[in-house]
């Protein structure tokens, strides 16, 4: 340890000396890989001082034509090219997208850089990470007129620092052929039955410590069975374990390798996944099938809501507001389903018919307020690990 500290300080000194040299940069930046992005510092020279008139938050910054909006988001963000193009034409802004891993990693990156944010707007924080993001103060309040018609249940922050964009239900999903087929077997009507002998060795779940749907399903069981009483959520998991539940690290592994309906030959007919899977299954069959091979168990579903917000300290706050407005508008909202396989929150969005037909929402989705999740997440994950793994 001492040696290491010695080495580290040696290296620090080396860094200090080497700092201004910066040798490899000139050769590297003239390379082809550097071409796809715009240089961020080009913007101010093109547009005279976009941030001059930005006293937050009222009366609101003004939009300067020719500006650039930088969106910080997670890897799952996707939108059709024409939709992005429309935003750029309407607003006179160019959109630059930065991706930084999954939702949790992205939120943490935004928190670490909050004094000098990487972009202007952030999309993709969900209700399980919302509290951490709000407590860290990475957003400034903004009420988007475009989300006026959005149901109150989605607006989780009373101070309006984030705007709801979409939602999805994490449910237990089953392989129709294996469970509901002509043999007459019926899928279980509730998640309780998954602990019965009929369903021994049939379920694969994701570890809540490493997977977002895994965490969502764990939260669903906590809401459904409670922390106290005759039969708690840990009793449920104890029974699932006795019934040979399989735990894997992430959704890919669960869906593609262990789930029998995922296409590569697993042998478990139940998996924790998304309520939109039936629509995705038909969509990605490329016209080869019109009957989804998977369906959801309409019980014990947890509702994830994703939000967008204007980052505190944004270079282009007006552009960020314009982008949040656009994301909440029917135009962008109608593009959401087949790009990200979640439901738009705006009731005015036109949901594609294939999506509307196969992707039904959960009848009684379970939710929990973000503060409760934030306050208990670590403890619950530890209890879950002790019960299910050790």
């Amino acid at each position, binding site marked *: 340890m001492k040696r290491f500290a010695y080495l580290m300080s040696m290296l620090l000194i080396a860094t200090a000396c080497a*700092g201004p040299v910066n040798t490899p940069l000139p*050769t590297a930046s003239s390379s082809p890989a550097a071409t796809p992005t715009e240089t961020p510092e080009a913007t101010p020279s093109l547009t005279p001082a976009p941030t001059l008139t930005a006293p937050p938050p009222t009366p609101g910054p003004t939009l300067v034509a020719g500006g650039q909006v930088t969106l910080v988001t997670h890897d799952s963000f996707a939108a059709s090219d024409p939709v992005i193009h429309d935003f750029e034409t309407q607003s006179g802004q160019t959109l630059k997208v930065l991706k930084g891993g999954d939702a949790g990693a992205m939120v943490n*990156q935004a928190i*670490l*850089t909050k004094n000098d944010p990487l972009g202007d707007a952030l999309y993709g924080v969900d209700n399980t990470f919302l509290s951490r993001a709000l407590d860290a103060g990475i957003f400034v309040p903004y009420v988007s007129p475009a989300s006026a018609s959005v149901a109150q249940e989605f607006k989780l922050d009373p101070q309006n620092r984030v705007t709801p964009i979409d939602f999805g239900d994490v449910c237990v999903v089953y392989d129709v052929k294996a469970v509901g087929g002509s043999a007459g077997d019926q899928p279980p009507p509730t998640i309780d039955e998954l602990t019965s002998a009929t369903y021994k060795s049939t379920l694969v779940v994701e570890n809540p410590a490493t997977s977002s749907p895994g965490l969502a399903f764990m939260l669903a069981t906590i809401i459904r069975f409670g922390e106290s009483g005759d039969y708690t959520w840990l009793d449920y998991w104890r029974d699932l374990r006795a019934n040979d539940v399989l735990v894997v690290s992430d959704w890919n592994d669960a869906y593609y390798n262990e789930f029998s309906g995922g*296409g590569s030959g697993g042998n478990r007919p139940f998996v924790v996944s998304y309520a939109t899977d039936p629509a995705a299954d038909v969509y990605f*069959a490329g016209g080869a099938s019109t009957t989804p091979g998977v369906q959801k168990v309409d019980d014990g579903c947890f509702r994830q809501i994703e939000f967008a917000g204007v980052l505190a300290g944004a270079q282009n706050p007006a552009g960020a507001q314009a982008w949040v407005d656009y994301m909440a508008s029917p135009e962008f909202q109608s593009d959401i389903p087949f790009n990200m396989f979640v439901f738009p929150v705006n009731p005015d969005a036109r949901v594609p018919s294939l999506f509307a037909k196969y992707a039904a929402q959960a009848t009684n989705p379970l939710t929990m307020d973000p503060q409760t999740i934030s306050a208990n997440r670590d403890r619950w994950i530890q209890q879950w690990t002790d019960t299910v793994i050790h």
Partner: protein
Amino acid sequence: MARANRLATPALAALPLAFLGVFFVYPVVSILSLGLAPGGAVDVGAALNVLSQPFVAQVAWFTLWQAVLSTVLTVALALPGAYVFARFDFPGRRFIGALAIVPFVLPTVVVAAAFLALLGPRSPFGLRLDHSIVAIIIANVFYNYAVVLRIVGGVWSQIDPRSEEAARVLGASRWRAFRTVTLPLLRPAIASAASIVFLFTFTSFGVILLLGGAQFSTLEVEIYRQTAELLNLRTAAVLSLLQMSALVVLLFVYSRYQQRNAVQQRQLSRPMVARAPRTAAERALVGANLVLMALLLGVPLLVLVERSLAIPGGYGVANFQALFATTQLSALFVPPIEAIQNSLAFAVVATLICAPLGLAAAFVIARGRGRLASGFDALLMLPLGTSAVIVGFGFLVALGNLPIDLRVSPILIPIAHAIVALPFLVRATVPVLRSVDQRLRDAAAVLGASPTRVWREIDMPIVSRAALVGAGFAFAVSLGEFGATLFIVRPDTPTMPVAIFRLLSQPGVLAFGQAMAMAALLMFVTGASVLAFDRLRADA
């Protein structure tokens, strides 16, 4: 000349030092101090509290023993292969040699899919080894076999077989001739390859998560969780220091060993022409190794190809067509052509950054003696032992303070790749450089050659071949690099592994098929570029 050396060494060292200082040490120290000393002073008590949690000891112990076991197995299985490839010629030798490196660069999501097809619920062999330690170890050997094969094989092919033949003529048994003549010359290369394999398996991440399931965890997995999921920077920093100090100990032992065992020898200026196996025993040896490689490396790769061709109701090229079609189905994703172009461009830039820095560093290490050289070597290796998420988050915390805000520049991707690739280039070059006979240099100097000319005429021809092996590795590492890329905040310029990852995060049979098709393309591009580098080396 001595004086010229004294001046030349610091000048050469400055380049790689500056590079690593700015893009590795500074970011990592920044994020670690943020975790250890959030208020400005290090809270030693809190740090020790982290260490005293029981899970830390469990995780550290598991990390260590699975790495040791994997390393020993990899070296034991790959050494005979290195011999066969260095000494014998047989049909398809170059092709198989290039193919062997492909596993090393495949993203773990893809490898996990192949292994689960073989060892999972529907195993054709009736095995059920997924989510077990056996699967983890086999996957580690699968990944790292090529490291030993290429590093040791590269050196072996330049050892003059006539020395061993002379020993045989003088009456030594085959084993004794190997043990006393060849093995001492090989030891540095074996140690070099083994230390890289150990580093890789010690910091295993994807293999553990995907093949091990929920019950196994390494330090790397915990650091990822604490940083990316929980934002528990103190725990992450303490675990990172634990991981790094274990590796510093390893590197210290390694450098001691290398200094004691460096042997000067005559290097062949061209690799010894490999010959066809003559005796039955030789043919059996070659055959046995090829069978092993076919089982260990070939079968999982074939499974991937099979999966990429599997479509509902049979086989066909529909998955590949879908990748290149501009229908709405693929509009979701970046066109594969673009991902291939991005990957190749990043790999070229990474290799260009890496090659001059790596050669400079190798020269310093090979010429230098004592603490400076070994400290330098340790510094180069340290990035392999540092969690990718720590480096990625470190970039964010630190690189905003530079004159240019590099935090979101796409150049960070090839830079990160170059940092990962640097030790390969250096490790492939140093053993060769160390073994250049000093008397040759002295003779040249006495005859009036300048130090530059000595370098050009004596060192360069031998080094360039070793450097090409390293550069090929660097190129391939960059093509397949996924972990570090994932944790860099980046504009939307996905590489092939990132595109595969994205395809796999969509449900649906066709998305899976397309991911496998992209994986098959990645295999092809990697194999082709390694073959091209080998061709260059043969021509050099």
